[in-house]
């Protein structure tokens, strides 16, 4: 086998297949590196993705939900939509899967040092945002950043990802964790309302700040003007895009927006960068 062949996945062991949401449509998979040298080579940052392969079925791209400060493992939260994700959902713990990556660029956290960070997420697009939070909360790193505000919305409490972790984050004072659901539900103690409205209420300051936003297109569409109202410039708004992808290497040709490949030049773009690209995503 050629070690520099970017098409060949490394083997990883599925150590946990966890049903994340009440509707059972999203599972979080924790994978362990089988080979030490693979782990050493797999250096990634929050925002990157990988192709996860089920032997006998194929591979599909998923954002990495774990963080670099969680050594030895990778986590992916995957909705059951296609051949590969369905096969993943059915996999028994202990199975071997393939992983190809890390692919794509990452949230520019290095450039955001000294700033307040606002993270806005919706639905199951919270995966790489979890990675970001986990990364920023690392005691060795937390001091490099100002306030950390997280606004996370889902249709109902059962559909929130990472519920236990969110509870822990809510207890901390170095992160302002705000969850919201679309409609009131008995026993729900968080906020109620759509993400754009909640963002308006919370009104994070745009001054010396950056916002990372990831979620369904409709959430982004309505949150963007709220952020602009709050004074966030297009350079301060950082987004992660989804596209149909195959190679992840900028070759197979399907994920481009203008001359940029979402798989290789993205998936992370600032709104300022996106505004320069054709509206075709």
């Amino acid at each position, binding site marked *: 086998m050629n070690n520099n*062949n970017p098409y060949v996945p490394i083997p990883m062991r599925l150590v946990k297949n966890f049903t994340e949401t009440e509707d059972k449509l999203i599972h979080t998979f924790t994978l362990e590196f089988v080979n030490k040298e693979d782990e050493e080579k797999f250096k990634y940052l929050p925002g990157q993705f990988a192709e996860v392969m089920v032997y006998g079925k*194929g591979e599909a791209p998923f954002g990495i939900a774990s963080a670099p400060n969680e050594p030895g493992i990778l986590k992916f939260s995957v909705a059951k939509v296609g051949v590969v994700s369905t096969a993943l959902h059915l996999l028994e713990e202990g199975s071997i899967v393939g992983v190809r990556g890390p692919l794509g660029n990452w949230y520019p956290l290095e450039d955001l040092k000294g700033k307040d960070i606002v993270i806005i997420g919706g639905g199951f697009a919270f995966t790489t945002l979890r990675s970001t939070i986990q990364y920023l909360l690392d005691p060795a790193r937390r001091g490099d950043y100002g306030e950390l505000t997280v606004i996370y919305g889902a249709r109902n409490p059962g559909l929130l990802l990472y519920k236990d972790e969110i509870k822990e984050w809510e207890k901390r004072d170095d992160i302002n964790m705000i969850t919201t659901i679309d409609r009131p539900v008995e026993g729900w103690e968080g906020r109620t309302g759509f993400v754009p409205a909640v963002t308006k209420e919370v009104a994070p300051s745009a001054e010396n700040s950056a916002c990372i936003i990831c979620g369904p297109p409709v959430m982004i569409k309505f949150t963007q003007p709220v952020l602009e109202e709050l004074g966030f410039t297009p350079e301060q708004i950082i987004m992660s895009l989804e*596209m149909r992808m195959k190679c992840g290497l900028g*070759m*197979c040709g*399907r994920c481009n927006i*203008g001359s940029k490949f979402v798989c*290789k030049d993205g998936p992370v773009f600032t709104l300022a960068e996106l505004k320069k690209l*054709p509206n075709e*995503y």
Partner: protein
Amino acid sequence: MIINKREIAGLLENLAKEYRVYAPVEKDGNVLLEVIEEGAEAALGAATKKPAKEILFPQSEELFSYQLSDEGLRMEDKIDKTKTVAFGIRPCDAKSMILLDNVFHNDQYEDVYYTTRRKNTIIVSLGCSEPESTCFCTSVGGGPFNTDGSDVLLIDLGEKYLAEAVTDQGKEFLSKLNLPEAGEEEKAEAEGIKKQAQATSEVDITGLKEKLDGMFEHPYWDRLHEKCLGCAACTYLCPTCHCFDIADEAKDKNGCRVRNWDSCMFPLFTLHGSGHNPRPSGKERWRQRLMHKFKYFVERYNATACVGCGRCIKNCPVNLDIRQVLAEIKAQDTGSEVS
């Protein structure tokens, strides 16, 4: 060097002992690049139906195979290291390889399947003394005797070919063939032929990229695709189109990963799992194809992704002629641009 046409068959047969030799061959009504086997007759000079890209980037190829069992995982990658000669391809096809090099070895990744074949392939192209009416290579930076991408260029002198080494690899290749040196007269004749030859068709693409810069939202795209069937004849037969799909073919946990040509003209090419499609109709797909060749590729690799071979023109089932499209785009009023 001089190769007598009568000796071509013997030469190819000899080469085939050391190399996998591809040459144009007439096969069931089409001229195709085929591996020369004993007794096969090369149809040199004919345009191949399919482009030469398939030598480096076959329409379907296995990337690797795998077997996962209780004993563990076994993988085998299928990198093709066969020493190869492509004999008698057209200069436009040779040039396309230079363009494809950009794609398959980008600033970050190397597609070892492509690059390994590329390193092991000697390109012997045959200049076009009589370009077809659909050829417009000279309009896109090529020419009937352009040497971009070739290691050796052949020039047809009637009864014989004059072979010119273009690269060091080509020089070494020729030196091993024990061919007679070309005389001064033959060299002069070859130069004369080169000077005379010109693609018959012309398309003016100067300023086209700048024009396209301001045309993403232009109404021109609304109707361009109307007659297009949305098939892949144009893209599959294009020497520079390189989009592909990756699929697993497997039984249980044993299988292989296969790469197949794919086409931006197919609706499924960009369809998301959610059902959303950023290029939902022929309009967006045609715009993509055009923009990719004449704008995006220029922005990324500083080259036009078209070599003017005319295959898309000859093979389009509805005669959607890219030369006309380019001329129409040039004639559009985009309001904003200078010139």
